[in-house]
């Protein structure tokens, strides 16, 4: 029997963690090295965690949908508490034309009226006349899913997790390096750029939602993702800027207005977290696996980190085990 492949995965964001778990599940010895003090030190921590292959087709190319159809199933098999209640798309009364436009560009939904909206989300009863319901979609909480993957890697699959480790460890030699360091890999991946995103976490016992709701608006489309313990993630701006400084007043107003428009009960919500981050992105905004010698890069996650990491991890697996 040959000895197991010894693999270094750099970067414990969603792409690195998923690749590490996949490789370790196939019998590789995996060391996961993270520059930051915890798993999910970068953009992954700020994500909405929507697993919405069909909604994303509104603005993403078809391959994003094709590569993510099995994503929800992978997450359900690998971390606890993944929700598969579908997702809902609504618009404020004066922007209802946006719902029709969204429908023309997407599939795997049905148009529903006030009664079914009220059955799915009682708190939204009578607030919207028309919505699109995508029953096959799901969502997860990134701040639970990432630690769960790390736990699985270390405690079930015999992997090693090194935090505060920006450079490659030199205590052993590796057959492969999987680089999932996001914008830190810019020197090697020169076409990467950062796309600024801003998000809020609200605590609001007055409102209950069971699935992500997208609120369409021609200029400022926003989504709200429910999490456990009455938490709601409100996101996210998309700005062609690499400023990772604090949130601007304009962005916060837009996010808060969307929450308020969805349900006035959010007026009394507590703002428990304000996050900003930079999404590593390629010029076509499609994530990619590339190989250079014994290094495999997984990068350009853009806004598709949770959606596409399982597929990208499978590509890494193929390169490691089938080449």
């Amino acid at each position, binding site marked *: 029997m040959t000895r197991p492949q010894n693999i270094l995965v750099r970067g414990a964001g969603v792409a690195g963690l998923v690749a590490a778990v996949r490789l370790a599940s196939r019998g590789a010895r995996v060391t996961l090295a993270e520059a930051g003090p915890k798993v999910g030190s970068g953009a992954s921590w700020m994500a909405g965690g929507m697993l919405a292959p069909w909604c994303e087709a509104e*603005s*993403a*190319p078809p391959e994003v949908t094709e590569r993510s159809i099995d994503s929800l199933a992978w997450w359900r098999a690998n971390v606890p508490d993944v929700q598969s209640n579908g997702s809902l798309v609504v618009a404020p009364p004066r922007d209802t034309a946006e719902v029709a436009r969204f429908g*023309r*560009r997407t599939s795997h939904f049905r148009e529903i009226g006030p009664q079914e909206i009220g059955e799915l989300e009682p708190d939204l009863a009578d607030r919207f006349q028309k919505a699109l319901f995508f029953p096959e979609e799901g969502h997860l909480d990134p701040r639970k899913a990432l630690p769960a993957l790390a736990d699985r890697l270390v405690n079930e699959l015999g992997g090693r997790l090194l935090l505060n480790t920006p450079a490659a460890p030199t205590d052993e030699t590796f057959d492969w390096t999987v680089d999932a360091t996001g914008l830190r890999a810019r020197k090697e991946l020169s076409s990467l*750029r*950062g796309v*600024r995103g801003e998000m809020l976490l609200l605590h609001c016992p007055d409102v209950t939602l069971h699935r992500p709701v997208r609120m369409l608006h*021609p*200029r400022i489309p926003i989504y709200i993702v429910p999490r456990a313990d009455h938490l709601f993630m409100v996101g996210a701006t998309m*700005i*062609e*800027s*690499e*400023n990772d*400084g604090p949130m*601007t007043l*304009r962005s916060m107003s837009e996010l808060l207005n969307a929450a308020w428009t969805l349900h006035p009960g959010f007026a009394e919500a507590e703002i428990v977290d304000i996050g900003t981050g930079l999404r590593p992105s390629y*010029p*076509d*905004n*499609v994530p990619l696996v590339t190989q250079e010698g014994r290094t495999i890069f997984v990068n350009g996650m853009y806004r598709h980190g949770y959606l596409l990491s399982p597929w990208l991890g499978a590509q890494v697996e193929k390169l490691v085990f089938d080449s």
Partner: protein
Amino acid sequence: MKFYGTALSSPLMLGTAQYPSPDILASAVKAAQAGVITVSLRRESAGQKAGQAFWSLIRELEVPVLPNTAGCHTVKEAVTTAHMAREVFETDWVKLEVIGEADTLQPDVFGLVEAARILTSEGFRVFPYTTEDLVVAEKLLAAGCEVLMPWGAPIGSGKGLNNVFGLRALRAHFPDVPLVVDAGIGVPSHAAQAMELGYDAVLINTAVAKAGDPVAMARAFSLAVEAGALAYKADPMAERDMAAPSTPLLGKPVLA
């Protein structure tokens, strides 16, 4: 017609915001054969040069860049953003927007005239985004602008040319000033109509960026402005209330 002494390769000006990706933006600019592309800086943290990665993609398109002051609500903001734009894109061209009303994004024409006066005195070549108001147009020209960019309809509304009479009046009053319909164009026929009125260019962003297929829509707009410009040059027939059959009526019993 020249814009501050420069002839454009095409009367189609294309905005660069809201595309699904920079790659699709680049393909759309190519398909549109755009004569100018506009870029916003205000929200992209021009102060810290944080938009550098995106701006270098814009520069690589090798189309003349017209930076804009989109998102500015005061004279001071607009002037500061114009200064940053000059530094980032090394051009003295600036599309001047001073927004007066947050919901419709209607220009604040009073602030616009003031900002235009400041910027032209500093050597900027100002392309003011204005309404179709004749008096405001006069004041902008007096402030040193040599181009006017009246709106067709509110930004992003896609309503087309809301006040054709006003736009026609502008054309008639200022036969020698380059005129651009900016904002409100939704479909290629709107752009063709603006060119048929004798306008020198149209500026389009949302209609291309938010189309299901931005690249195909960019090409559609390029064909439309070409058709409209050609039609204007060809001197269209006069409209009339009655039919004017082109076949002879000889032999018919009645000639009413």
